[in-house]
């Protein structure tokens, strides 16, 4: 599991996750995600390269996202593969954090 970030126009921080977000994957990104949650106003979480999303992995995404929202920021999830999107939908996460498959639409929603 790897995590990297890049800055986009409009003050958006794009977080690129790559690998399996299982228990080990979650442990590997938790610290970085928490730091990002404390420092970003607009967070775009790029899930295109996440091949598996487990229950602890879901938490690693949702908790930092909620923290950003509580501080008045916005979060969007981008490009989950079908089995990952299934997990997000089964937990009603899409009702709290919008999911996009189109990058431009995600950026518009964040700004």
């Amino acid at each position, binding site marked *: 599991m790897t995590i990297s970030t890049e800055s986009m126009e409009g003050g958006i921080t794009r977080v690129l996750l790559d690998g399996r977000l299982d228990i080990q994957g979650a442990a590997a990104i938790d610290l970085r995600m928490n730091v990002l949650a404390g420092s970003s106003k607009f967070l775009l979480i790029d899930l295109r390269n996440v091949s598996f999303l487990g229950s602890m992995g879901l*938490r690693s995404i949702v908790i930092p996202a909620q923290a950003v929202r509580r501080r008045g920021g916005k979060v969007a999830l981008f490009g989950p593969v079908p089995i990952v999107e299934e997990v997000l*939908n089964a*937990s*009603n*996460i899409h009702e709290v954090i919008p999911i996009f498959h189109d990058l431009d639409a995600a950026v518009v929603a964040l700004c």
Partner: protein
Amino acid sequence: MSESPAPVHGYIDVVFSDRPQQVVSINELPFLIGRGRESGNHLAIDDLRISRKCAAISAGPSGICIEDRGQLNGIFVNGKPTSAGILADGDRIRLGIDDGCQLVFRMQSEAQTQEEVVTKLRSLLGSLGGDSADDLKALRLLLEATSLLHSQLPLESVLAAMLDHAIVITHADRGMLLEPDASGVLQVRVARGRDGESFAPETMNPSRSVLGQAMELESAVINEDLRLADRNLQSAYSVVVQLLRSAAVIPLYGAPRGQASSPMEAPRRQLLGALYLDSRRTTTFSALDRQILDALGAQAASILDNARLLERERERQRLEQELSIARQIQQALVPQGLQDYPHLAVTGIHRPCHEVGGDYFDVFTLPDGRIAIMISDVAGKGLGAALLTTMLQGALSGMTLGVEPVKVFYHLNSFLCDRAAVGRYATMFFGLLDQDGGLEFVRASHPSPLLLRRGEVSELYSGGSFPIGLVEQASFKAERIQLEPGDTLLLYTDGVTEAEDRDRNLFGAGRLKEAVSRHKDSSLAELQAGILSAVERFAEGASQSDDITLLVVRYQRPEDGTARTETQSPGGMQLPV
């Protein structure tokens, strides 16, 4: 030893490739060798490749014999395969495998033993350059120190006794044992005076410069007179303050463990600590023989090394014990021996992948006669998840006091969200079944139970719902369906559908439905067993990576005389071996 033909002193050197040699006395014949102590082994070898009953040493008509008691691949004496044979002093015994430990048999008659000790003493005394009473005393003390190694005293007493011996042998005023702290700085752990008194370690002020010198040279350092030593030492603050005249420092190294990274490079010795002795008399250590210092160092290092191993082992045992208590508690909390109810047959199983698990199910009756059936899966595994299942169970049992399930879900959700540091959330299905087959349920992101009705398998619901404890704005609602007599509900956790084969393919909901529909005419116990074996066949021995939990219930109308009564297998937890 009563069975042996002549009084002998036999022992076995156990030579390991990766840790110090052990010496085990043969105090009883037959002397059993094998894995673990449970089978009554006198020499227990902790190696899975060694059979529980491996070999035995016993007294035969013509001497001490060894006999193969069932070691896989046999035993070898001096390299030759041996099923039974006479042992001679120095024989090398190998147990089935090439790279395990090697045993060396040692045997001496009692008379020979005593004679040898006397000879050894004489030769040692010779090498010390005299046969004064003092040297003899020193050696006796050294031997006593050796015996401390095998004593059962608390560690602090052993270390203190070792220091006392070192003080007597070297005629020092004080002795200290130092151990490196977390940052590697040597700190005094035990300090003793020449009259056997203990000093508080923090009041000791050993000369750091002499210590540093010994660490740098990696060997014992004696300073006859610190005032005359090199300028660095002379200016050393602690020496001046305490007006110490002489000191001896012996660094203590553990036996090398593990392999050297290259053949050219010797394995690095691990610094265990240092023995520090000092005296206000200048010549105290001048007459001290190097051999005695080295022997002292070796003994002290060996005691420390063993003590550390023992401490680690005790810590491991303590953790294991705690975990086993957690497991007992979790086991005691799930319904034991699930009973049938007038309108409901029940069976269930919880198979955690670790000692304790994050899945749990429960079945209980409400005062109004409805029966609660529930299943829950806490995110994560092991002890952390298990702690939360216990709390969920406690909260949900409150429903027997007449609280609405939806209210309990809301309460639990905000309780956990307020305590985000708990770091866990749960999926859950909670159902209440009345006598007429009405099933009211609340779900929290839990996979839909499967409904088996007249041979057809379907899901109770589709679409998502919030889990408990992940999102504070989560909402929950009660839903309702009508069950028909003979309807079977299978509640499960995702450990079932996410069981993986060796290529990481998932068992999946499709295979689960197939397995259920194959058992449309089976008893609940057969249905449950059929699902478990389908999962096992699919996984083909790939290790189980999540808890697997099933709860199967069948609704039957109580006044319906034709409804079959299920004979139940005992429910409750099934734990991994």
